[in-house]
């Protein structure tokens, strides 16, 4: 088991792009509500044949294969928690704890559903306004075309989480939905990918965000206990950068709000559309079936989609490096 392994659609770990919290999105709200309506409709259709009998609910519960609890404790060093351009970035250390519980529901020989609930906390050492607690849930539907070893597993997921910060403006909800694919290449190498729509609904408009991400991941098992993994992700859509006022950012931003998570000086949160690349390189060392230690490095680079003519790239681009050590347990 390694970080983020739990379900192919991705676990909720620290967001390394955009704000360390929801940023903004009015359109995102609408999109999510529509999605919710669709999901609710499907739920009603699926359950339409079910008269409300207590026995049915009991049988449903019996059908869930409980996969146990997972816990993660992590320490992360982040060299740019403000997601600010060079010269305006702030470094901090973050302690994180996350627990989750998951269950799988076989639907047929080729399909299954999974549900997961998770909760956690992040504590920032210096910029405590970024510290937050979160709770959420995720639902997945999987399809595998055959039982052959190399057969791919396709999935669709919906995830939502509530986040509460030690500051005010970032508080809100974070949603995602998308499709996934998981394919073993050899008995040591496994590839996975996901296309997702990510929506954040913050208390401030600047933290209302929506973006689309395309992610790929490769796991290489060096042996029974050791895994190296490499991930790459591209996001296109809203991101938020917090920094002092510059003409370049002001001209770029769609929304500007004074950020309440920082009190070292006056800083503003700028929401703008960007293309963002994330790369992750990690190593996971398992200690038995239930424990592992995970070390990873993530690098994020983001550039506005619509930079003003008077700005140089260095005035707008932000780069983040995160180094994490995490202890993971399953029980």
């Amino acid at each position: 088991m390694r970080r983020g392994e739990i379900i192919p659609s991705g676990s909720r770990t620290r967001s390394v792009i955009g704000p360390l919290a929801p940023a903004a999105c009015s359109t995102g709200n609408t999109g999510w509500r529509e999605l919710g309506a669709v999901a609710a409709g499907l739920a009603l259709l699926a359950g339409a044949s079910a008269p409300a009998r207590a026995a049915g609910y009991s049988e449903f519960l019996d059908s869930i294969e409980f996969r146990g609890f997972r816990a993660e404790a992590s320490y992360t060093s982040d060299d740019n928690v403000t997601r600010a351009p060079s010269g305006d970035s702030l470094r901090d250390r973050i302690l994180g704890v996350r627990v989750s519980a998951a269950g799988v529901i076989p639907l047929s020989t080729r399909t299954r559903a999974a549900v997961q609930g998770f909760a956690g906390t992040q504590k920032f050492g210096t910029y405590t306004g970024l510290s937050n607690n979160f709770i959420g849930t995720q639902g997945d539907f999987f399809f595998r075309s055959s039982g052959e070893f190399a057969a791919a597993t396709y999935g669709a997921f919906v995830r939502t989480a509530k986040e509460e910060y030690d500051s005010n403006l970032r508080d809100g909800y974070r949603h995602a939905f998308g499709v996934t694919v998981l394919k073993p290449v050899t008995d040591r190498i496994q590839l996975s990918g996901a296309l997702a729509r990510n929506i954040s609904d913050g208390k401030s408009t600047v933290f209302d965000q929506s973006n689309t991400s395309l992610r790929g991941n490769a796991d290489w098992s060096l042996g029974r206990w050791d895994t190296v993994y490499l991930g790459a992700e591209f996001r296109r859509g809203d991101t938020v950068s917090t920094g002092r006022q510059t003409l370049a950012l002001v001209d770029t931003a769609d929304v500007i709000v004074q950020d309440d998570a920082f009190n070292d000086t006056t800083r503003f949160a700028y929401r703008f559309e960007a293309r963002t690349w994330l790369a992750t390189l990690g190593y996971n060392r398992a200690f038995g079936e239930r424990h592992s230690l995970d070390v990873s490095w993530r690098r994020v680079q983001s550039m506005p989609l619509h930079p003003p003519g008077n700005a140089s790239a260095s005035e707008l681009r932000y780069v983040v490096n995160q180094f994490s050590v995490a202890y993971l347990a399953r029980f």
Partner: protein
Amino acid sequence: MRPLLHPAAVTLALAALLSGCSQSNTGDPVAQPITGPNSFLLFPNPGAPQPNGSFQTNTTAYAQAYYAAIDPLNAKDTLTKWMNANGFGTGGTEVAVVFGDTRDLGYGRRMTVRRNVDGTIAAMVENYLAYSIADYVYNRVNLDAAVARDSRWHVGTNGIEFSPAPNGQTFAKFFTFNPVTGERLLAASLDGRGEKAMPGICISCHGGRADPLTPTGGFPREGNTRARLQPLHVDSFDFSSAAGFTRPDQEAKLKTINQLVLCTYDLPQGTLKPTGFAEDDCRPVATSDAWFSQWQSTAAEMVKAWYGGDGMLSAGFSDTYVPADWVGQETLYKGVVAPYCRVCHILRGTSNQSDVDFTSYLFKFEDYADRIKAHVFDRGNMPLAKIINRRFWSSNAPELLATFLDNHGFNVRDGSGNILRPGRPLADPGPDRTTTVPATLSGANSLFASTYNWSIVSKEPGSSPTLTNANTATPVFNTNINGTYVLQLVVGNGSASSNPEQVTLTVDSGLSPAPSAVRFSDIRAILQSSLTGCTGCHTDASSTGAAGVPPWEPLGFTPPIFYTDYNRGGTPGTAGDGVYTANSTDDDYWFYLALRGRANFTDIAASPLLRKPTGHHHGGGQVLDFNNTSACVAPCSGFATLGDWYRAQYNTFVNWIVNGAPY
């Protein structure tokens, strides 16, 4: 056994349930309601109110009249035309600087100043303000936008030229242009508080006057507002770190601009040139008439001091200037006057009445203690621009000023010693006066008030005074016995009440003329009376106007308004003819409208017509001496003393203004 409730449905339903988690953006900053007065950049003595409640100096008509006076052929109705007319880009001296105006208007400013070979000077200023960043404040982005000439934040372009006007006089003229189209504008919103008319938004801090329009709708003095060019206080600017725009990069240019501004300040009449100081070579020597009736180039000494004094030998700006008459009060000067008052006040005043330039503590600033309290702590319209006002209230300056007022008998502190700020309700029951009854009172000049509560504090023995509509701004007082009555007004704003303020009414049923019957003819008679002696100075006999030409500029030591009868409107024979018709062919009507400019209808007690003759900042000293015990002779027969007669005349002035100063 298959579950009757499909598990996929449960998953989706759960997601659907949570998908309802959304929220409104309650964390976003909400536009705060404007508190305090919205009168920044408007003259605190706003002139006659218009039918719609606005003031003439803030009307489209005022702006139109101004441009018509300084540019009758509309030859400068676009920025391009104006720049061409002033020779931008041609020969002569031309320098450009970019700076952040942190103290006054908050803009990033790109200023180009030039002096033509004919001596005319013009300044073109592009203003940049990034409104998107929350509030109207200065921030570095404004400066960066000016450096980059970022059109997104270009909010306007101002033009000032010091050049001959159509009437032949050379004076400063002010223009503002649309940042996109370049069209000349009649009004502009300089501080995000709505559009205000030209030229008031400029000249209110350039030493200009706010005199009324003439009966023909013309601008007084053919557009000569007496406003001046402002020198640049370099220490209060913010500068970019970009090459070419740093302070060191621009220091020499800034000095050049200040030298060019100095070129527009007259040398005193009789000065022999060359003075021995190169910076004076471009300065005209004032004619006797101009010098002894107009602004005394007070700022010239300060500008020179910024660069080492006469000769201006210092390359860099350094402000350690304290006028000689402020020695001993340096803390007050440096803590209050220099940063918050001087920028506008030093361009004001005339030789006859220069108190308002605040260049002396003892003879000028100190004598304004009552008005300082009224404008700064009560009305809140000083300092006159929003940013500088905000900075004032976030500094130690209010404490310094409150201490000054404490020492002069004016209390601006609450019971706990905290400084009172404008915005609290303040009652104004109007000035003490003699009246007939029934008398309509007015508390309309109360500040920040929405409720009114009048009461009778004292009365004549045996009388039965009444107040009708005592909870309105305009109750009616009546009584059955002549004598003295003290009334009290308390106003409120829904959450707080004012301190009570009293007004003393002396009821005289035989008063003639009755307050409601006072007309301009009565006021004219007082002003022209030999007992007041007003026309000894306020006379057209000493003016530059030729026969049949309005005397725009007075001669030495004469004031800017004349109380004598003369041909003001170009129609001979109607001045003082005893016929009063409100049209442009009636010279008396010209006189009347000019005189209305001496009334302050928002703060009646502050009307120059009341303050000047009673000895407040009046070149002629105290005229209406209520304590004069001299015996009365004609035309004041019937009064026990001359002082009594003076009080009666003053009372007539009060009643005239209280009743709207009718013609």
